[in-house]
């Protein structure tokens, strides 16, 4: 490991003399400050190594005399009692680090301010030998360092790579064919500049920029805690997109989001902007003290400002002075005072005031789109209704014949056996189940039966009186807490659950009067604290309960049904005395109501004429089994629901900031505990960072001005670093969330400062900085890397090449949609729910939240608009920010789960199909087809070797599909996109397979 450390140091130092901030401070901070740093409470021996005076006065450091300095003596000591850092700290100095400390003390032990806390000045542009390579000052800084290390930049990237890089970085979408062609003709700096401008003028640019800001803002569409209730803060997301669309200067962007509610002459848009500070999670857990929650929110805002604007890990100071950075706990709570007097009370859900009632201009388009879908589906539903008439006539004839032969809606279930769990004796007598013997306080009856019906749609339970009444207990009453039906096979060990959809009873008592027992619906929820009961009626009266199954159940020859009737009531002693089970195969109302079933009415009619009303009932029942209509009706219902939901979004409550009338008094919280109030503090910014702007009140307006003042050393650096990260995959500071002493030093400090200064000078113009970066020669380098270069600089700290990395998963989805032509570029409005596997929300919330996937063209909106549930983020995203706290760095890891999603997610399959469907022109050869799809996805033609592999797979797919007659049809059914019917299914399926392969190439998933 040592050679690496050495290489690392050499890389950092070059031939320079020792620098305090670059070389020494990181060592002191990491190894010493925990006990000898800014945090007063954990300080040992009253020694501060972060403070020159303390270090000198205590003799720890004697400038120029390392051998007399206690620091060096301790570090070099071999005595375990005096050696520093102490063994129990787990910290150790490497010989190189010790040497750096020695060299620094020897050269006079000069202290300097940490680089990031020094105000930004414009550095001189360094001279370079290879001036011809330089396109703008960015390159001078990069090249100067390369030349000093004796290295050279990489060659220019291929023009298609460059086109893709620019389009991905700036819009998150692929370049158009004409853009690729134009850059292929001319990839000069001017041409790239024009291309950048063109991209930055698009709405897609604004949406791409918004994504990272939403991550930083921990934006989500739900509360996060307990119940994870929905919120409607999405208009703020559109505010952000609009801010980037209009290139709002970053200082204004800051001002409106921090204090739009306080701005003189503000309008709803400015108030809307402040939702930024309300995106924290909210906790409405029963029994939780709302004040504790409120404090959490205030703290979260301070931490978010710390990360998003200042690049500081302020969170440490909630409990104590910062251990490394010059921020005290009091500073922290002074910052918190800016956010402490919001007119909020710590509540969640729909009570999370203050709100802004907001009407979004983006909803009208959604309503129009929703209405179109409803209209289409209404027409389809009517068509299938008409189509049903002919088969209905046939069905009715058969039904009359069956009824004539004695068929009725309900058939006795004739139990095979019945057993109890707790010891009741159950006997089956003439089809009745009769209880006797032990009468436990609680018991479950399991009744095994096998109806001789083609399928089962419902179960009827008759509860019948025994000796005393329907129940065996003291009062003769019955409670049924839950009913469960399973299908068991004698050939299989595992059972399957049979889901019950509805429950009705011929009588149910008032639940409130009987300790929660009454409502028959409650027998379906697996909760023994509620259920159905026979109270309030004579115990000698029989009762009838009818349960409709959510799907008809077909039993295989080895299967039977088990009905488990549970009496697990709190009070107990309410077991059933006698009962009988029935089953039905009738669709529609028969199993959902207690009314006489239509076919039983039909039986009454005999061979006479069927009254119109009965015929209608029979027709409705038939429709419920007529698949085309069932599907069309369900599709229509879903579209109507979707439309209603969009309409409801016309006016929504957005959580925003507003000051309360009586400001709260803010205190230091002892050890960060919400109700342990320490000294009172007044609002103020961190004094060690920048002075408070003159003539500015200590409120959030002032805070925003402080954040974006020229004296603030952090904000501009932090922001341009993130823009650099957007264009290189990693920032100049590799820890974008931490510019403090424990963060990484910048790889190119002068370049960072130059960009930061330029950023402020340009009026905080984001596009100006992005253009500078993207038009540099540094940016235009190839990302290809030799083994030697990789070994020398694995992290690309010298920037002798561009970076190649996997695209974020949200971008992969957007690019896939765009490549296939499915992308719906509509902007704004309430979030949509792109299809994801069934059950993702339901499993997490035990069924409380149901994911109803958006249908029609809205499902193909950009991922930015996908609904974000905090307890279960979109299942098709990987490595994304969690949207729980502010995040500004994007991890990239590899999990096989993502490989599975990328191959099998229906949206990827339908995109491949949509793309393949566009190759059916001019009778193209296999080679031409492969080349066309390849170009579309990868923006370049395939090499002959690549083409050969893909053609081979195309042929393989054709053969396989033609050998399996149904396969192609099924394969084309994944997802909802329908290709023109004129296209040959087999050919389309084969081409879709190959398009899918290309979508899964590493190159397609990468930004090069």
């Amino acid at each position, binding site marked *: 490991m040592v050679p690496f450390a050495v290489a690392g140091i050499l890389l950092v130092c070059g031939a320079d003399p020792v620098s305090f901030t670059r070389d020494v401070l990181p060592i002191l901070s990491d190894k010493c400050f925990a006990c000898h740093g800014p945090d007063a409470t954990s300080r040992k021996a009253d020694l501060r190594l972060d403070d020159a005076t303390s270090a000198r006065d205590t003799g720890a450091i004697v400038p120029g005399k390392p051998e007399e300095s206690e620091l060096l003596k301790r570090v070099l000591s071999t005595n375990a009692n005096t050696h520093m850092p102490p063994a129990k700290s787990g*910290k150790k100095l490497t010989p190189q680090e010790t040497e750096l400390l020695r060299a620094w003390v020897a050269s006079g032990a000069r202290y300097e301010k940490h680089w990031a806390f020094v105000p930004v000045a414009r550095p001189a542009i360094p001279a370079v030998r290879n001036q011809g390579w330089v396109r703008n000052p960015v390159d001078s800084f990069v090249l100067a360092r390369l030349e000093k290390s004796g290295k050279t930049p990489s060659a220019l990237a291929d023009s298609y790579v460059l086109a893709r890089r620019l389009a991905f970085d700036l819009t998150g979408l692929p370049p158009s064919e004409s853009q690729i062609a134009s850059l292929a003709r001319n990839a000069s700096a001017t041409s790239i500049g024009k291309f950048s401008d063109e991209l930055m003028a698009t709405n897609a640019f604004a949406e791409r920029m918004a994504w990272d800001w939403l991550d930083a803002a921990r934006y989500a569409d739900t509360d996060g805690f307990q119940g994870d209730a929905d919120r409607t803060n999405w208009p703020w997301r559109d505010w952000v997109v609009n801010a980037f669309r209009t290139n709002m200067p970053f200082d204004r962007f800051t001002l409106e989001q921090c204090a739009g509610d306080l701005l003189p002459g503000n309008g709803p848009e400015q108030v809307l902007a402040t939702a930024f500070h309300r995106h924290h999670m909210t906790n409405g857990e029963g*029994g939780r003290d709302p004040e504790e929650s409120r404090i959490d929110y205030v703290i979260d805002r301070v931490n978010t400002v710390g990360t998003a604007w200042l690049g500081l890990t302020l969170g440490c100071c909630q409990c104590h002075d910062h251990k490394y950075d010059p921020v005290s706990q009091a500073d922290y709570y002074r910052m918190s005072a800016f956010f402490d007097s919001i007119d909020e009370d710590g509540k969640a859900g729909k009570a999370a005031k203050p709100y802004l009632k907001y009407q979004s201009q983006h909803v009208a388009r959604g309503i129009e789109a929703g209405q179109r879908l409803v209209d289409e589906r209404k027409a389809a539903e009517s068509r299938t209704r008409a189509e049903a008439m002919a088969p209905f006539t046939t069905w009715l004839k058969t039904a009359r014949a069956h009824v004539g032969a004695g068929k009725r809606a309900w058939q006795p279930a004739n139990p095979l056996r019945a057993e109890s769990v707790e010891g009741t004796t159950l006997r089956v007598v003439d089809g009745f189940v009769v209880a006797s013997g032990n009468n436990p306080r609680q018991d479950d009856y399991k009744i095994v039966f096998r109806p001789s019906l083609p399928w089962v749609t419902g179960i009827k339970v008759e509860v019948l009186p025994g000796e005393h009444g329907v129940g065996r207990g003291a009062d003769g009453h019955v409670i049924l807490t839950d009913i469960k039906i399973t299908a068991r096979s004698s050939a299989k060990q595992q059972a399957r659950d049979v889901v019950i959809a509805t429950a009705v009873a011929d009588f149910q008592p008032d639940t409130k009067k009987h300790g929660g027992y009454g409502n028959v619906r409650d027998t379906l929820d697996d909760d023994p604290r509620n259920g159905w009961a026979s109270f309030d009626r004579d115990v000698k009266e029989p009762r009838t309960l009818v349960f409709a199954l959510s799907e008809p159940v077909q039993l295989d020859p080895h299967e039977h049904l088990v009905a488990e009737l549970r009496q697990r009531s709190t009070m107990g002693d309410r077991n059933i005395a006698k009962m009988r089970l029935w089953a039905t195969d009738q669709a529609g109302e028969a199993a959902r109501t207690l009314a006489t079933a239509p076919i039983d009415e039909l039986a009454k009619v005999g061979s006479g004429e069927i009254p119109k009303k009965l015929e209608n009932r029979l027709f409705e029942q038939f429709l419920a089994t007529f698949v085309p209509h069932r599907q069309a009706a369900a599709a229509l219902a879903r579209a109507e629901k979707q439309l209603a939901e969009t309409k409801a979004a016309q006016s929504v409550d957005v959580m925003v900031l507003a000051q309360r009338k009586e400001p709260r008094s803010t205190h230091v919280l002892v050890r960060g505990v919400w109700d342990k109030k320490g000294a009172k503090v007044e609002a103020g910014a961190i004094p060690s960072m920048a002075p408070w702007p003159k003539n500015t009140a200590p409120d959030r307006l002032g805070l925003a001005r402080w954040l974006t003042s020229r004296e603030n050393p952090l904000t501009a650096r932090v922001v341009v670093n993130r823009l650099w990260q957007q264009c290189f995959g990693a920032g100049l500071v590799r820890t974008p969330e931490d510019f403090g002493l424990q963060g990484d030093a910048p790889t190119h400090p002068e370049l960072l400062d130059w960009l930061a200064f330029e950023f402020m000078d340009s009026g905080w113009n984001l596009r100006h900085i992005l253009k500078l970066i993207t038009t540099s020669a540094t940016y235009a380098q190839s990302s*290809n890397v030799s083994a030697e270069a990789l070994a020398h600089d694995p992290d690309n700290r010298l920037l002798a090449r561009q970076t190649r990395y996997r695209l974020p998963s949200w971008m992969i989805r957007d690019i896939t949609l765009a490549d296939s032509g499915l992308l719906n570029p509509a902007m704004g409005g309430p979030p949509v729910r792109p299809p994801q596997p069934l059950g993702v929300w339901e*499993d997490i919330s035990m069924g409380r939240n149901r994911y109803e996937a958006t249908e029609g063209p809205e499902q193909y909106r950009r991922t930015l608009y996908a609904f974000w549930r905090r307890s279960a983020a979109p299942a098709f995203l990987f490595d994304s920010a969690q949207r729980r706290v502010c995040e500004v760095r994007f991890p990239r890891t590899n999990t096989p789960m993502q490989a599975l999603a990328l*191959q099998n997610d229906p949206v990827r399959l339908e995109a491949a199909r949509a793309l393949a469907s566009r190759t059916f022109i001019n009778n193209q050869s296999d080679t031409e087809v492969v080349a066309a799809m390849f170009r579309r996805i990868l923006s370049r033609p395939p090499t002959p070797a690549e083409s050969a592999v893909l053609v081979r797979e195309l042929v393989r797919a054709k053969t396989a599909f033609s050998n399996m007659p149904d396969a192609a049809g099924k394969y084309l059914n994944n997802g909802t996109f329908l290709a023109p019917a004129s296209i040959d299914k087999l050919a389309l399926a084969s081409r879709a397979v190959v398009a899918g392969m290309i979508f899964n190439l590493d190159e397609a998933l990468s930004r090069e």
Partner: protein
Amino acid sequence: MSNATADTLLASTRRHFLGRGAGITLGAVALDGLIGSSIRGEPMAPPRQGRAKRVIFLTQSGGPSQLELFDHKPDLVKQAGTELPASVRMGQRLTGMTANQKQIVMPSRCAFRQYGQSGATIGEWLPHMGRVADEICFIKSMTSEHINHAPAMTFLQTGHQLPGRPSIGAWVSYGLGSPSRNLPDFVVLVSKMQRPSDQPLYDYYWGSGFLPGRYQGARFRNASEPVLYLQDPDGLPLAVRKGSLDGLSELNRMRAAQTGDPETLTRVRQYEMAYRMQSSVPELTDLSAEPAETFELYGPDSRRPGSYAANCVLARRLAERGVRFIQLFHPDWDHHSRLPSWCVARCRDTDQATAGLITDLKRRGLLDDTLVVWGGEFGRSPVGQGDWKSIEAGRDHHPRCFTMWMAGGGVKAGHTHGSTDDFSYNVARDPVSVHDLQATIMHLLGIDHTRLTYRFQGRDFRLTDVHGSVVNGVLA
């Protein structure tokens, strides 16, 4: 690329990462995919061989009542209906649900029985647990710092009450990796319930926090697809899938030769692992080959896919296949009312299956190196919520003392560690904090909890924050 080559690459990169001295800045973009985000790593201690090779954590969410299940307080009957003495309560914080009512003592709602040679006392609602009492090491002196569900469960899972840190399974996966080549290191199984639970099981309970995403728990769902997107698309012939994968790997290698990016080869490996999972996961979750006797042992509910009992069978199968950290979640232990129906219901869901799992692991020789942990985020108060005399009374949250238990994997069998006072309100002897418990689990796996760290936002984080000591009293 052959698996062997890929593994070598991974291993060398991992060493590479571990070998970097502290204080040297990295921003390992090229290595991100293999190892993680840019890390300045303290060299990690090579783990010594632990007593346990794997963990099965049977998490009972909601706060099971120690007073009805394990912490027998027969004398409390004498105090029934009296106010909890202030000397016992000591100003302890209450939730908003009971803060405004009198604190009236409510004795256990059920009888207790004594079992086995160890003479452990267990509430009558858990009749099956008695059979395995001699395998269990009870910790009756657990304490937590948090009184609300989400913070307390987050604390139990991640060592901190706010979301954002890695879960214990993620730490273990990061620290030890997995001997299984075809399954994830960390698998989560959540019981399928009919009733919407008031405490959602947030996916960050098994998240990787700031650790790379690959360490997060893989939740196997109770669905035709246990892992999301596991199944090949409808209609895709197997030969075509196999051909596509081969083709992908050929094409990716062509590109890698040009770009020189080792990440591309990782991608190949990722797709290969995905392909293996497509057969290994269904094989794992298909219980049809299990003999009837298995289901008899774990109880009738084990025949219902997705039930806690079925998940216990799956847990044993995962353990057999070498998965490192297996975590079950069973919700709805938050019994603020009606213990005789509500708490009984959760006992019935879990009792036979939990006992069956211990028995099954034991007879298969797996219990020796499998650590089974049972427990929730806190316990419940000896004070009645609602009218203590009413059958409808329940108990409020209580973090000051509660019971968890462990079995197998290097802990004392038939042992009880720690005790509570006469009220089961405070710990009387040998308190065990959540961080202590975490430290002990790590220790049993051969990990020094103080040394398994990850640098994030300038700080070396660990599961146990700056706390926790191994509970030597439970070690065999």
